[in-house]
């Protein structure tokens, strides 16, 4: 999937900057990025309807601030930043609404995953989802991006504003914790 994320091309950015072609170009952006962004959001918020709302907000925010996009950063990096910020804001609101921490809020959502009609994973996939949900917010994010999206550490570094070394350490810790989760459960 990581290769598919290399959508940035100069032609698309040039068309986005031109007021005459911007709308059509943004339509192409939606078509290209809706799926990878959706999965990134979905893995964070779990629920399909929430992911759908956040994805819409992500594109609306991007469209409303397209004038500010100067092409200094990659288009994919810019969109991922917006999507992750939107997801974190959502989780924060949810935790405030339920008066629990972000991590607990995700865990609560995850408990409902078994009854989710948009989850058809097997037992081991469900167990892994639970293990991931038990991770702290940043480690969960890093694990999802690295494992499911197979994103390069360099791109993750640009999106999350964290050094490559810290991300590698975070991923390593996450894997260890998942291993521990499985061994404890056995």
């Amino acid at each position, binding site marked *: 999937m990581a290769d598919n994320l290399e959508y940035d091309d100069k032609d698309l950015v040039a068309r986005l900057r031109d*007021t005459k072609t*911007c709308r059509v170009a943004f339509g192409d952006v939606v078509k290209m990025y809706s799926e990878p962004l959706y*999965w990134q959001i979905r893995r964070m918020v779990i629920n399909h309807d929430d992911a759908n709302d956040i994805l819409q907000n992500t594109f609306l925010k991007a469209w409303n601030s*397209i004038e500010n996009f100067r092409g200094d950063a990659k288009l994919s990096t810019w969109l991922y930043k917006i999507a992750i910020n939107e997801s974190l804001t959502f989780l924060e609101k949810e935790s405030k609404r339920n008066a629990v921490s972000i991590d607990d809020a995700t865990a609560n959502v995850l408990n409902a995953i078994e009854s989710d009609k*948009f*989850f058809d*994973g097997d037992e081991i996939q469900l167990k892994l989802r639970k293990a991931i949900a038990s991770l702290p917010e940043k480690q969960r994010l890093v694990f999802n991006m690295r*494992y499911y999206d197979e994103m390069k550490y360099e791109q993750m570094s640009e999106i999350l504003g964290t050094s490559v070394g810290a991300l590698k350490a975070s991923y390593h810790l996450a894997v260890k914790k998942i*291993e521990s989760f499985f061994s404890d459960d056995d």
Partner: protein
Amino acid sequence: MKTQDILSKVNHDSGLTVPPGYFDSFNKQMIESLPVQPWESERPIVLPRSFWQRVRPYVYMAAMFAGIWCMMKMFDLMRPSSNNMIGFSNNSELTAAISNDEFYYDYCMSSLDETTMYDALFDEGFNPEELNN
């Protein structure tokens, strides 16, 4: 079970699914629902050009050439020209006038200074004593 075994079993599949045709319908709805931005309707306003605006460059150009012509004419008038000089050799009327003794004595001689005139008189043998007699 080792983590690597678990991860390889899961093989990057989260087990999460979406409704059939979700992304196609989402893309369509998303593109249709994008609000119109103020800068989208911005078009450069082209004002109709007045007659003066149309002819102004030509008028300015004509004025510039006229100015250059006047300047050249003025420089030409200020320049000392050989045609304007009055010379004896190429002016027959002046030659004729100088050849006329009467004209010469009436106009040219009168312009002689007194010393030159006395010198000429003494050269001809003029004696001032003769005037006293």
